[in-house]
């Protein structure tokens, strides 16, 4: 007999945990399936084992086990894709908390015009401004519609920041480009590290508009809207890649799951790798899911009225393709939607050395803290003469360089990798340098997409997902332009040496070095079922009792970190499920 519940949620990360909380509040029985292991901060996050860098960032404790399932990657459609066998360029999470456990905590809202980028570009520069082959699209949802859900998420995450405008009134020294807010941040901004304060001064003197990064790292002890508690951050630097032993970095494990675990309507099954969403014979209704217990290799089917896909971005796309939800994207005919508009982000990290009398102490840091400027992000500057779409915030986000990373990063580029010169370089870089990032957008292109690999299979016999991705001229030129703006700021900061890094013309995507885990798209939201896989409520156009929550919904890669947007979209979708869908299940938007 197949066990029946009201709702099944795939994935125990932010998206899944938010949906589980909302649906149990609505009175539904919810089973959450997580491919990886159970993870709880009082057990695994206990100090000091949790901040063992060798187990953590080097041996990738919290990340996906690629020996069981991975994806294949190629740059262009004429190449043969090969499996991504070692975690490097991006790091999907695995286990309860997902990427929400190992993230750093930068917690942005969204630049309103990024939600309607196609319309904004056409209004300002005309349709011809959009390069051939770029699938530029609007989200189909506005900032004003999402605002209450950004606010709700920040109060759950315990987000620290300084607002600029609240209910139309300028209230503080926040980001002048940021939109109006209904309320302030729940916690005051994180303090500037020394390096961030130097950047703040130099950027301000250059006429830019520096602001404190919004951080889901608690600047004070905090009890969130669910009664879950956070301790304050002490800038230990073990955020990205670690479960925060101070309970300061927001995670599903600290901020939502403690209260969910007490709810009798909720159950969580770890080590449950979902193989497919089961559909009825019409292929328009999901009946449940089938998952594999990764310990026993036993298959189990569960039935449910409502299915939420809340796995990592490309796993959501993979599950849709494996289940036959929606039409797979075909880049040749430019038809189908699942796999379309796969996007990433451009990120280049430059390094600046200050005089030996100043100490940046790179071991100090917090994943979400720092100072940024938005003067070259989104539509905040004139793209007309520049001829590209998109932009980048620029920031000093000193997240804490751990010892092994510092040692591995020293030397090279003309400096020996051993001996006293290496040691001098290591010490000098650790004590006196700082990083400045251009963390920018990445547009969608017709020949950049996800589909099923024709050759490679995972440990469970399913075809791997295939990623076809490389850098395109528009994004390379955008990155180069923004990085060119870093140099004068760095000089004003008193740089004695700088290593400015940007993408180069024709440079292909290289999977061997870490860039960012901010993958997006592939099952995007939109207003047209011909060009989007899910509607503006993140509901599948094709199977209306399936909602697909995550950065898979982003039509373009934006300049901001995605988690804040994912959380707001989850609350947005949940709101409409509760307010409308549950009363009358069916499509929330007529196709």
């Amino acid at each position, binding site marked *: 007999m197949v066990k029946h519940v009201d709702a099944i949620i795939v994935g125990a990360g932010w998206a899944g945990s938010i949906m589980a909380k909302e649906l149990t509040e609505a009175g539904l029985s919810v089973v959450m399936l997580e491919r990886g292991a159970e993870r709880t901060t009082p*057990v695994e996050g*206990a100090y000091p084992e949790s901040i063992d860098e060798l187990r953590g960032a080097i041996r990738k404790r919290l990340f996906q086990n690629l020996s069981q399932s991975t994806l294949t990657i190629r740059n262009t459609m004429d190449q043969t894709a090969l499996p991504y066998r070692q975690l490097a360029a991006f790091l999907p999470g695995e286990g309860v908390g997902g990427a929400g456990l190992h993230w750093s905590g930068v917690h942005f809202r969204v630049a309103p015009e990024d939600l309607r980028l196609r319309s904004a570009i056409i209004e300002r520069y005309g349709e011809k401004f959009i390069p051939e082959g770029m699938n530029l699209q609007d989200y189909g949802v506005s900032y004003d519609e999402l605002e209450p859900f950004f606010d709700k998420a920040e109060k759950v995450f315990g987000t620290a920041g300084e607002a600029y405008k609240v209910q139309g009134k300028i209230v503080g020294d926040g980001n002048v480009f940021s939109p109006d807010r209904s309320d302030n941040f729940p916690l005051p901004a994180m303090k500037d590290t020394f390096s961030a304060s130097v950047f703040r001064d130099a950027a301000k003197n250059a006429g830019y508009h520096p602001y404190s990064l919004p951080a889901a790292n608690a600047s004070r*002890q905090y009890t969130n809207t669910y009664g879950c*508690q956070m*301790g*304050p951050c002490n800038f230990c630097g073990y955020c990205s890649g670690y479960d925060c032993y101070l309970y300061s970095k927001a995670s599903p494990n600290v901020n939502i799951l403690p209260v969910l675990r007490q709810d009798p309507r909720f159950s969580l099954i770890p080590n449950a790798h979902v193989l497919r969403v089961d559909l009825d014979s019409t292929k328009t209704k999901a009946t449940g899911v089938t998952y594999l217990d990764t310990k026993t290799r036993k298959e189990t089917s569960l039935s449910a009225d409502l299915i939420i896909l809340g796995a990592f971005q490309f796993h959501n796309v993979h599950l849709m393709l494996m289940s036959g939800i929606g039409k797979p994207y075909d880049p040749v005919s430019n038809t189908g939607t699942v796999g379309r508009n796969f996007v990433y982000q451009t990120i280049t990290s430059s390094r600046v050395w200050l005089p030996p009398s100043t100490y940046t102490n790179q071991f100090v840091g917090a994943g979400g803290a720092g100072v940024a400027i938005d003067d070259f992000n989104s539509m905040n500057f004139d793209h007309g003469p520049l001829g590209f779409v998109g932009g980048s915030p620029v920031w000093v986000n000193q997240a804490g360089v751990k010892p092994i990373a510092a040692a591995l990063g020293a030397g090279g580029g003309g400096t020996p990798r051993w001996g006293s010169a290496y040691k001098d370089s290591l010490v000098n870089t650790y004590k006196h340098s700082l990083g400045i990032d251009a963390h920018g957008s990445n547009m969608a292109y017709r020949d950049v997409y996800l589909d099923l690999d024709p050759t490679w299979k995972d440990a469970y016999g399913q075809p791997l997902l295939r990623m076809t991705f490389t850098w395109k001229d528009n994004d390379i030129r955008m990155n180069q332009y923004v990085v060119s703006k870093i140099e004068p700021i760095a000089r004003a900061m008193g740089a004695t040496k700088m290593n400015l890094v940007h993408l180069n013309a024709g440079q292909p995507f290289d999977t061997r070095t870490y860039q960012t885990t901010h993958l997006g798209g592939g099952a995007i939201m939109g207003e047209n079922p011909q060009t989007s896989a899910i509607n503006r409520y993140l509901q599948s156009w094709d199977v209306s009792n399936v909602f697909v929550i995550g950065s898979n919904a982003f039509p373009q890669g934006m300049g901001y970190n995605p988690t804040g947007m994912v959380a707001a979209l989850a609350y947005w979708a949940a709101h409409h499920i509760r307010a409308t869908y549950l009363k009358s299940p069916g499509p929330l938007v007529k196709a």
Partner: protein
Amino acid sequence: MKKTLFIAVILGAGLTRSAAAQEADTATLEKGRYLAAASDCAACHSVHGKPEYSGGVSFSLPMGKIYSTNITPDPEHGIGRYTEAQFSRAVREGVRRDGSTLYPAMPFPSYARMTDSDIHALFVYFRKGVPAASVATPDNEIKWPLSMRWPLTFWRWIFAPTPHKAITRTAGEFTDPQLARGAYLVEGPAHCGACHSPRAITMQEKALTADGGSLYLSGGAVVDGWTPPSLRQENRTGLGRWREEDIVAFLKTGRAETGSVFGSMTSAVLHGTQKLTNEDLRAIAHYLKSLQAADQSQTAWTYDPTITDQLHKADLSSRGARVYIDRCAACHRTDGKGYPAVFPPLAGNPVVMQTDPVSLVHIIQAGATLPAMTAAPSSFTMPAFNHKLTDQQIADVVTFIRHAWGNNASPVSAEEVEQFSKSMPPSDMADDTPALN
């Protein structure tokens, strides 16, 4: 037609009566459930992983090991064959159905204070609200001649009050209804004195009530490696600086601005006090605040910033300061104030200043996990340091904590730490069952 109507009326009346009776039954059963929590029956009669109240918790006594019994309604192994009178006698007087005397690990001298109506509710709950579990109680491991129970009868005659005396005494202590309710709960079902009052050589609590003298709740002997602190108004080692709302928060959520629960008390909050109404918790707090200090000699604790200033200037010359900075300060801060209700303060914390440092040494050795509570779902872990710090380092840091920020307790030696490590309680992580976060 008339007949049908008549029958319907009769049936209707019958239904109404039985519905009301049912409601009353449910109310009694729920009252019993509440009293079982207030009496913390689960702490001794429930083992994780076994049916609730099926017994089997072991108690290591000087003369050997005894096990708590199955108190589910199972007729063979439990109390299914107990009449209410027999149940009452066991709970309040320590006499089993077969007439033999219970070991006074069962706090019947406290339960003796429970009213007949409360005992009735408790009986109804244990008969109808708890599923029967056919789990046999392990045999006690006490060798003859100490295994003979008849001497316990004399103990009972000498030290255990009769229910009538006990009820009258506790009820007569206070006229203020809130204090009276607090006294009833603390001296009766909650049996706080079982751990928090000193015992004589013959094992009876030296006082069982507020009017029994200032030794009552003045701190007990080590239980499972933890020293129960005084619950009286000593300024430094008691609850002198805890406000009523701190006590309420502590009992409701296991955490307060003044400190967090750890050790054996964790289970008492988890299974017991967190389930009490705020009104009852306020009564308990109000009552505890009325108990004058047993030790009147303590000077008032005031915060002393000397050590904080030293640490802020990176002066680590004080004994244990370096260990404190490396291992403790991240959560408990250089000023020792912690982050209240998340990471407890060490400055001025009565547990830190207890004469006997064993609790402090043990929490550093074994760590502690504050479990999720209904009203505070977050769980926090203090890590175990027994494999990370030497006895000397633990002695140094304990000494540091005990004299920093205005604290004034005695130093601790490495030899003492080594000695304490033999009685180190198992880590909360040991059974893999910390409340999940």
